[in-house]
């Protein structure tokens, strides 16, 4: 017999015939993938028989948030035209996913928004002026993340997902009841960080919910150039977590699916990947020209499936949208917009010396030197201005 250099002691002469019952060691897939697979159709409530079960109070609350969110998008876009915002990535058309993401969380939970998700942050209670700080340009993160437990808006796509996993994992290790909900776009799912975050979350069974807003585009790149997957929710299977496909314009469906995912996370049943199928009605940002890559006809198809209108229809059908209610909701949104306008019209207080204050816990001697240089320049500038002012007065 040929020595196979394995040191194997099984006598080879005993092995005959083709049907040996060799025990194949531990290689059976450990989980049945069936419960992880998303349904083939996005989950819907509004406009379906499921709507009957939806709680009116919740629907009215969602409606208020949707209308306010729509107003917020319109106002922020207007602010870019007035030069009060450098740039604004609008979520018009995506309000259902945005506000539901905020509403399903409890106070101690954490939200991890991407750069587009200022509305979710605002719906969680963040002052919209602070939420827009980054885009206004007076500082990077316009708010204290600990105040409302909202991580900094993440510009580098998908990079915030592992943060959410780490935070949720840390809270769980400490025995705290905290769930993290992390938001990312369809384009962001192609990044390595998406993959690594979901894998860590599943291995650690961290209490995280990943919400992908599939709005059809990554700037100009349509989903078909982004992935060949059956759906983005199907990616969950490869991590061993359940994937859910939802109509992202259906606020009731979004609220229900996200609530369940949060509940599971909270109960120690691990992470969920939720894909909200939606559509970005505006251009990527006000600086973008969407006509370069999509047709008006396509946009119009989606207009017929508007999240605010969907909810309106449901509430109207139930006879809940009387004049007074409508006026109250409108009023609230207008007041909200007025406060935002006012806040954004006030010039922010800037201190250039802040540039050196927060780089390290304690300023290094190099930074002290550089801060002194800037201080001297600013003083000289001020002196020169004062002098020219005095000159003019004379």
């Amino acid at each position, binding site marked *: 017999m040929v020595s196979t250099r394995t040191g194997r002691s099984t006598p080879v002469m005993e092995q005959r015939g083709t049907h040996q019952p060799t025990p194949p060691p531990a290689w059976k897939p450990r989980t049945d993938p069936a419960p992880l697979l998303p349904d083939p159709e996005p989950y819907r409530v509004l406009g379906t028989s499921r709507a009957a079960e939806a709680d009116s109070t919740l629907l009215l609350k969602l409606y208020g948030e949707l209308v306010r969110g729509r107003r917020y998008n319109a106002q922020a876009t207007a602010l870019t035209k007035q030069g009060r915002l*450098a740039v604004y990535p609008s979520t018009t058309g995506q309000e259902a996913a945005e506000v539901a993401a905020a509403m399903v969380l409890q106070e101690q939970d954490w939200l991890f928004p991407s750069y587009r998700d200022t509305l979710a942050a605002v719906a969680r209670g963040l002052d919209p002026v602070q939420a827009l700080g980054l885009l206004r340009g007076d500082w990077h993160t316009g708010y204290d993340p600990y105040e409302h437990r909202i991580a900094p808006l993440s*510009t580098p796509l998908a990079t915030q997902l592992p943060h959410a996993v780490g935070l949720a994992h840390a809270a769980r290790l400490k025995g705290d009841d905290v769930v993290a909900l992390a938001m990312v776009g369809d*384009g962001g799912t*192609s990044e*390595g960080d998406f993959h690594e975050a979901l894998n860590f979350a599943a291995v650690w069974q961290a209490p995280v919910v990943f919400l992908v807003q599939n709005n059809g585009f990554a*700037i100009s*790149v349509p989903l078909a150039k982004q992935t060949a997957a059956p759906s983005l929710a199907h990616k969950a299977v490869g991590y061993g977590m359940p994937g859910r496909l939802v109509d992202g314009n259906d606020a009731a469906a979004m609220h229900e699916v996200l609530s369940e995912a949060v509940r599971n996370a909270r109960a120690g049943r691990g992470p969920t990947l939720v894909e909200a199928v939606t559509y970005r009605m505006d251009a990527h940002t006000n600086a973008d020209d969407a006509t370069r890559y999509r047709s008006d006809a396509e946009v119009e198809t989606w207009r017929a499936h508007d999240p605010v209108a969907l909810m309106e229809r449901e509430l109207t059908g139930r006879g809940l949208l009387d004049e007074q209610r409508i006026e109250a909701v409108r009023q609230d949104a207008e007041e909200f917009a007025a406060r935002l306008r006012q806040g954004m019209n006030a010039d922010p207080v800037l201190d250039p010396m802040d*540039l050196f204050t927060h*780089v390290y816990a304690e300023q290094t001697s190099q930074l002290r030197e550089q801060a002194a240089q800037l201080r001297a320049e600013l003083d000289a500038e001020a002196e020169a201005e004062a002098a020219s002012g005095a000159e003019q007065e004379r």
Partner: protein
Amino acid sequence: MSTATSTAAGRTGTKPATMAQALQRALRDSLAEDPAVHVMGEDVGTLGGVFRITDGLAKEFGEDRVTDTPLAEAGILGTAVGMAMYGLRPVVEMQFDAFAYPAFEQLISHVAKMRNRTKGAMPLPLTIRVPYGGGIGGVEHHCDSSEAYYIATPGLHVVTPATVEDAYGLLRASIASDDPVIFLEPKRLYWSKGSWNPEAPTAVEPIGKAVVRRTGRSATLITYGPSVPVCMEAAEAAQAEGWDLEVVDLRSLVPFDDETVCASVRRTGRAVVVHESGGFGGPGGEIAARVTERCFHHLEAPVLRVAGFDIPYPPPMLERHHLPGVDRILDAVARLQWESEGGLEGGSV
């Protein structure tokens, strides 16, 4: 704008154009001349890139040559490596400076090393275009000057244009190079105008030659990319104070043109390195050190540096305090120990 070479301005057939146009033309000419050239990246196809540098190219050359990729920078660079292995010449666009970081492992461990690891058998002729630097009111992660990372990585060429002519010429030469080139495009010069000859634009060969943008006798400003126009302006302003400044535009950080730089510094005896990148560990340290090593006995003063502060790039409303401007350059020039010399043309302190 004083960014055009003085020679170009007088030529017949020259026209004004923006740097963005020159870059687009360079890509187009490269695609047209060499079927191995492929352009790829996020939004470079249908949209024409967020800065419109690839505008119209997908239409002209087809989506197989000018390709919108999935949103994954390591994947973009990694697949480009594979394409280059098969003999193509990929030209990769990183949408913004900071979004090149996810591709750093591919860059450092493969792109920079492949020729060397294979004893020359497997060169990687690929160009990585990186819009870099600030001054455009961009939010965080959109304004990094990341050249320090690239120059510390042997195996890469690091090239950056400051004029419209060079934008064309250096990009053509980079794409034609058989080595990987990091092609740093100064974002805020995209819309700068210069005269060039669109009838007969030419590549700048070889990569690695600095150019004296302005001759002067008092001191040398050594600079590149977005800081070149600032230095030219500073040199004009300096005249009023009696300094006649020479301005050297490096054009490529790797290879580094010691010859041109040192010849200038030996002539003037004084030098200031100017760049937007942070000072600590930035290119300025290397440049100052090597100039000092080579020209020590010609130096009347230490080589000084004017750079961005050693801080994360500031938010839009504060960036003007960070960027090296004319005043800071003149301040540095003033600190070049003129008094210890005497006899200098009006040398102020």
